């Protein structure tokens, strides 16, 4: 009996000790201020790199980010489980209207989707593709690599008479949304708007020539093990896996490979169609940057965003502001391979947010 009592008391003591952490946390001075964010898995490596850099410069603060997916990130952000949200797509118009004036959307980094292929005959020679041909491939209407339309785009290449396997994502993903938006923008008569989204019922699957892969690694694995296949992945994976990347015909008719300059040029050319203020509606932003005009723009490009609130508690306001400022001013020194920093003009939009965040 006495032993039991001692154990109960010990347990209570530990419990009190554990809870003392949470009080210290909410208490007045010195203790760490913690900012939590969650969302896009695409953004995670870049944000982690920024967070670690930021934490080196600032003591007594901490930032946590969890890659749970853009959708989950938004849900947790609006349920106030987190302080900021990493999201690939901007807010939809309805959501933006519901939270109008309370949320700021900051285009924080650029990413691109690369069209990759596995055709042994081509070795290192670069394939040229355009939106119409890609749409026809994913519709299942172009069946062979040596289709007349393919030969017209690639006059110098010796294309084999082999069936094309079209690889796509099997899970809901922003990559799919960007890619299908491009197909729709570039070939609206072929690729209808109800085939645009995070998950799509791929027509090519119905012809038995489509293959799904889970996540970017799944697509890469499927592509590598299936000869004569074509697929789309985040640029970073194309680099890391040394996959051949196709040049894509842009709005001005040039075939462009995804390079830092080409991606930034697309962002700059999208600027006229973007709002100037981060509190405004960005919902049509993807249509502006995908298949953007400009001589050297890469067509399958998109922003990733950080959403913040307009009001925070006093300590958090400071940290959020400093973090955003740090990303804009010093973040470009910490950019991870495969990501592209936003051009100066976009950074100015983000810096404008600093004035809009108030404590209260």
């Amino acid at each position: 009996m006495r032993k039991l009592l001692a154990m109960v008391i010990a347990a209570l003591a530990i419990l009190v000790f554990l809870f003392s952490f949470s009080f210290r946390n909410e208490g007045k001075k010195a203790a760490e201020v913690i900012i939590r964010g969650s969302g896009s898995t695409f953004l995670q490596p870049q944000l982690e790199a920024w967070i670690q850099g930021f934490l080196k410069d600032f003591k007594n603060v901490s930032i946590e980010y969890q890659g749970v997916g853009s959708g989950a990130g938004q849900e947790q952000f609006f349920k106030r489980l987190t302080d900021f949200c990493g999201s690939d797509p901007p807010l939809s118009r309805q959501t933006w209207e519901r939270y109008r004036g309370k949320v700021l959307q900051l285009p924080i980094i650029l990413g691109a989707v690369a069209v990759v292929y596995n055709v042994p005959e081509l070795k290192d020679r670069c394939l040229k593709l355009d939106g119409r041909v890609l749409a026809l491939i994913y519709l299942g209407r172009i069946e062979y690599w040596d289709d007349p339309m393919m030969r017209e785009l690639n006059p110098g290449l010796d294309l084999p008479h082999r069936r094309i396997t079209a690889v796509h994502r099997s899970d809901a993903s922003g990559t799919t949304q960007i890619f299908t938006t491009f197909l729709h923008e570039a070939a609206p008569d072929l690729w209808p708007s109800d085939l645009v989204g995070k998950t799509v019922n791929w027509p090519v699957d119905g012809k038995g020539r489509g293959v799904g892969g889970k996540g970017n690694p799944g697509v890469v694995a499927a592509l590598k093990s299936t000869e004569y296949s074509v697929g789309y992945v985040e640029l970073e994976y194309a680099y890391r896996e040394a996959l051949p990347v196709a040049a894509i015909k842009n709005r001005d008719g040039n075939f462009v490979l995804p390079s830092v300059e080409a991606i930034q040029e697309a962002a700059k050319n999208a600027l006229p169609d973007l709002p100037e203020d981060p509190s405004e509606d960005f919902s049509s932003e993807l249509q502006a940057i995908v298949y953007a005009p400009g001589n050297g723009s890469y067509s399958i490009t998109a922003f990733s965003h950080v959403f913040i609130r307009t009001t925070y508690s006093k300590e958090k306001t400071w940290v959020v502001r400093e973090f955003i400022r740090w990303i804009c001013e010093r973040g470009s020194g910490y950019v991870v391979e495969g990501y592209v920093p936003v051009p100066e003009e976009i950074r100015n939009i983000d810096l404008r947010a600093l004035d809009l965040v108030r404590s209260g």
Partner: protein
Amino acid sequence: MRDVSSRREAERLSLVRRIKDKLFLVILVVLSMAAFLPLFHIVASILYYGGWTLLRGGLSFLVDTPPSPLSSNLGGIGPALVGSAVLVFLTVILGLPLSFMAAVFTVEYPNTLVARVTKLVCRSFTEIPTVLIGVLSYTLVVIPMGRFSALAGAVALAIVMVPYSYTYMEESLASIPRTYREAAYSLGLTRPRAVFSVFTRIARRGILTGVLIGLAKAAGETAPLLFTIGGLRHAYFNGPDHPVGAIPLLIYEFALTPYRVYREVAWGAALVLIAIYLVIFVVLRRTVREVRM
């Protein structure tokens, strides 16, 4: 003549039977070996891959915070280790009294409706997919509280743990011989006294087993934590009503990323997790012969 042929027949038959018997033995041994092969393979893989990680990271692997995805620096699993310890503690605090009192109740008042229902419910609870318990805790604890927390995780883990520890405690309390019970009452002890000072002592092995099973579950389960604890990487601990990390969750999350350093950390964490599990298991085996999980 007939005699000879029937004897031959019998010999042939017995030969067939002996061959069958030998064949059976061979199949039995092969299948039994095959049954254990995965266990050794799992342990060996974890020792091999996790061993490299731990060798590279050294002791600081247990203390440091996790690396950034593309860094060459290994970092560590400190926050997750702290988080797991907190979770185990909170889970036992929540689950132990619950399962013990419920066990006492069903043994002492077996003919009441509540006792019968409790017994039935606990039996079926071991079969409930643990991810649903995570969903339950998300709906009932995380959303009303407004944030992920160690508490929400502990609630989920306690719900997973209770049926297991309850079963052991109930069985050991119920198996106290009638004579002992009568002896206790004949001393003039009231029921609460008899339960707490006599029966509990007699059944202490079973009770300890229940606690240890709870520890093992709380340390090793992943699915109940998916939507409840939130995870923590750059800080160690901010209180039980704040998000924490946990080793199993860290393994699950890191293993599914494409980054090499994260996978290395996942294997290292797996080695730590299996070590913790083995310690609990060895203690368990010392207290009780058979362990059912």
